[in-house]
């Protein structure tokens, strides 16, 4: 390990680590890009549908199944499955297959928590609001979603950390991100870049968690919901 540790410092001290297309900053940026894209798409897909279903109080089975199946599907496999299609349809390597897999990974926590949150809004609050003349869309926007916010944020947080961490997998299908030095490093003798990238990714995942924790505390300081 001493070897790898000193290899890592050598690597970090070299130009190669910081400049050019294989430099850490660019790899980091690539990872962030992928993660953001996946979260954005997953959020847009999951929240509206889940909120609506929660509002009409239908679809518990769906919410439960999505989580169970999502947990059972290996992201690695999905990436490998999508790759040939991506190539054939001209979407290339790397980014798109991984994006598909990451979106699938991100949806379950966001979906389930939004559904549970919206559905869990006390019935009397909803009645009172609709009694005041609010129509469905208004209800959702002004009453249910804000009430469900803590849970929605929690779901986003869990998703974000998973996505940020798993984006590393893009490297196995040629996406140049922080996973690339790791995957290549497994096959090489010099483990310096591998170690550097690994530590960086770990820090990234932890940082994402911390960031969301902060956002939660800022946006919903009055309560943190335990599992109900």
């Amino acid at each position: 390990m001493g070897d790898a540790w000193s290899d890592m410092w050598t690597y970090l001290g070299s130009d190669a680590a910081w400049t050019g297309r294989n430099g850490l900053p660019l790899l980091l940026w690539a990872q962030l890009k992928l993660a953001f894209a996946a979260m954005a798409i997953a959020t847009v897909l999951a929240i509206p549908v889940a909120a609506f279903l929660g509002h009409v109080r239908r679809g518990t089975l769906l919410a439960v199944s999505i989580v169970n199946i999502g947990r059972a599907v290996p992201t690695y496999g999905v990436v490998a499955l999508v790759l040939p299609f991506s190539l054939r349809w001209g979407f290339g390597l790397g980014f798109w297959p991984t994006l598909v897999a990451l979106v699938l990974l991100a949806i379950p926590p966001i979906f389930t928590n939004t559904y549970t949150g919206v559905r869990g809004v006390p019935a009397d609050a909803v009645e009172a609001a609709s009694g005041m003349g609010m129509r469905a869309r208004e209800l959702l926007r002004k009453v249910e979603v804000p009430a469900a916010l803590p849970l929605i944020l929690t779901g986003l947080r869990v998703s974000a950390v998973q996505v940020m961490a798993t984006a590393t997998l893009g490297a196995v299908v040629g996406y140049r991100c922080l996973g690339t030095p790791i995957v290549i490093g497994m096959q090489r003798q010099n483990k310096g870049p591998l170690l550097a990238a690994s530590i960086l990714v770990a820090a990234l995942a932890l940082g994402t968690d911390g960031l969301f924790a902060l956002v939660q505390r800022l946006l919903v300081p009055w309560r943190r919901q335990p599992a109900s």
Partner: protein
Amino acid sequence: MKRQHIVAGLTVLILFAATACGDDDDTDASSSGNEQREGPTVLIGAQEFGESAILAEVYSQALEAQGFQTDIVEVGGFRDVLFDSFDNGDVNLAPEYVASELNFLQEGSATSDVDESLGLLQPALEERDLTALEPSAAVDTNTFVMLTDQSDELSIASLSDLAENGADLTLGAPPDCEENAFCLPGLQQVYGLDLSANFTPLELDLIPDSLEGGAIDVGVFLSTSGRLTEDQFTVLEDDQGLLAADNVFPLASQELVDAYGGDLDTALNAVSAELDTEGLIAMNARYDIDGDDPDQIAADWLADHDLT
């Protein structure tokens, strides 16, 4: 509802268990019929690409037919990892390539003359307690390949053309390309072409499809790759002689060779005498295109050449 859960689960579990119980797969080390020789097990290192696995099987089966005990070790990487494995005794024999080996040990020394290169290689190997046995006629170098359509469009037929017109094209090659003298450094040195900014590391077997799908512009294939026969691919000419005599040869530890006093040499030399580029291409084609397993491919080749 609960009972159905349990029954379903148990049934499938039992099915899994049924397949799991039963004979364990035999290891490679069973020798059939011939007298077992006394001596160290031959540990053959296979690198992370198909041809290496096939050649490792060829050596393994040929030796076992002569009474040696062998085992194939997947080193999990390329040349540098292979050398580590030799160093710590995990491996004592491996199929390797003359010119690439020489360049790995002594940058820039290899030529297109195999005897000359070999002459330079032996002393370098001796320093590491290794030795090269007789090389075969089979040659496998890196080749740089483009889609025929694109090469026509951009008028790139040779590596010099690439240096002129294609410096901003993307290159797809195995991960060791950045240090492989017959890859990025070589292109830089001989052709003044620097593709490192647009280099995507890819598994060898992923490269043809990536090239076909347009994800990369230039791909590194092995010159013996079964897919080179396809019209859609054009090999760029190495007009300035970057690629050298990469003949296949058995790399062995001195210790192993000494332990068997010449019998190992004889057995492996017999294999090398029969191995040629055409044969290698045919074997790779079976691996790449037919999807056959390395052990079957090796067995058939050995049988065809009366080596088992």
